[in-house]
């Protein structure tokens, strides 16, 4: 699949674009798009971290605990 199909355009205010452009000079980021992608991934990941932990069914959890006890991992 061609790479161009994997990207889309998002608009941001021009002054913000200029600020970012100045900020990334001399860093490892080669474009404003790279920087914005990095920041958005970071933000989304931290939001997802705050979501609730995966819950197992009671039955499933008891089965797991049984094995852990049998193997000596739990008392």
């Amino acid at each position, binding site marked *: 699949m061609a790479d161009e199909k994997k990207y889309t355009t998002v608009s941001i205010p021009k002054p913000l674009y200029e600020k970012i452009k100045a900020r990334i000079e001399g860093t*490892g980021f080669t474009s404003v798009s790279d920087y914005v992608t990095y920041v958005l991934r970071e933000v*989304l*990941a931290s939001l*997802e*971290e705050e979501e609730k*932990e*995966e819950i197992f069914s009671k039955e499933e959890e008891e089965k*797991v605990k049984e094995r852990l006890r049998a193997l000596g*991992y*739990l008392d």
Partner: protein
Amino acid sequence: MVSKPHGGRIVKRVASGKTRERILSEQHEYPRICIEHGEAIDVENIAHGVYSPLTGFLTQDDYISVLDHMRLSDDTPWTIPVVLDVNGKDFGEGDAVLLYHNNHVVARMHIEEIYTFDKKEFAEKVFRTGDTNHPGVSRVYGMEKYLAGGEIVLLNELENPFEKYTLRPIETRVLFRERGWKTIVAFQTRNVPHLGHEYVQKAALTFVDGLFINPVIGKKKGGDFRDEVIIKAYESLFRHYYPKDAAVLATVRYEMRYAGPREAIHHAIMRKNFGATHFIVGRDHAGVGNYYGSYEAWEIFNEFPDLGIVPMFIREAFYCRKCGGMVNAKVCSHEERFRERISGTKLRSMILKGEAPPEHMMRREVFEAISSFEEPFVE
């Protein structure tokens, strides 16, 4: 709270009860694909959620995305192509097939896609070299012409001599929670522990609730320590030197790719699925020969702000005669002449001769555990 599973949920693709019985009773009706031991291990790791969010072997879209962007096509970080190579005969897209290893049925797979791939591109993007002396590259060049992508469901586990130490992600997650650990650092190893390892592990443990030692069990090179030796050496270390309520030892079956930086990310993802919140990344982690720079495996983590597990970069430890203990270059101000570095080659040679390494290199109890084996090394 332990790490959230990679991609949001722990995958479980294990057939049980009547479904399993039905598939097995009809096994002669399915086309058959024979798979290597490493692929069978991949199947198990997919089925038990070690490779979450993968539910099968990569389809072409994901394969290309992993090669080009180190991400699945939905943008989830993923650096190693988990693929099944096939010769493209006897079955087609849309078929359900059975995967066999050594004449034993392992899993059922739904063939969603069969596609061609460029071996040179695979090697150069994943291993950063086309040199066939690299074990990963050589493996790629030995693959069949096509890749088959699609979901799997596990029917039979492979024989496992280390069942007692084999925990699945769902089990470690319950275990960590039962112990009240909110932060867990994972350590991957293919070696017996020496003082340098102990220093790194305990330095990391200082900052978190629990330490998860996760030796990799599987195919090894000649001269490596045998799996049972590694386990026994760690059992001894745990018994004598590790706090029982702050450390867990459990193995994972996995076949190394030796893809250096890319594989370091993959190892971190696997441990995230086990519930670890932190991962110790070694110097030249998952490297082989001189293909990767010493700290490339550290630098690559900068490219993944959304990995969901914190890498811990702890410098290589050595014994400093002036400091009088194990230290690293960041905390020791003394000259090289005071430093005694732990050399794996030197340790091996001493063990082969039956000589106990000095106490600042290896614990006496660990050496005794290793020495209890007539042949501790893989031939």
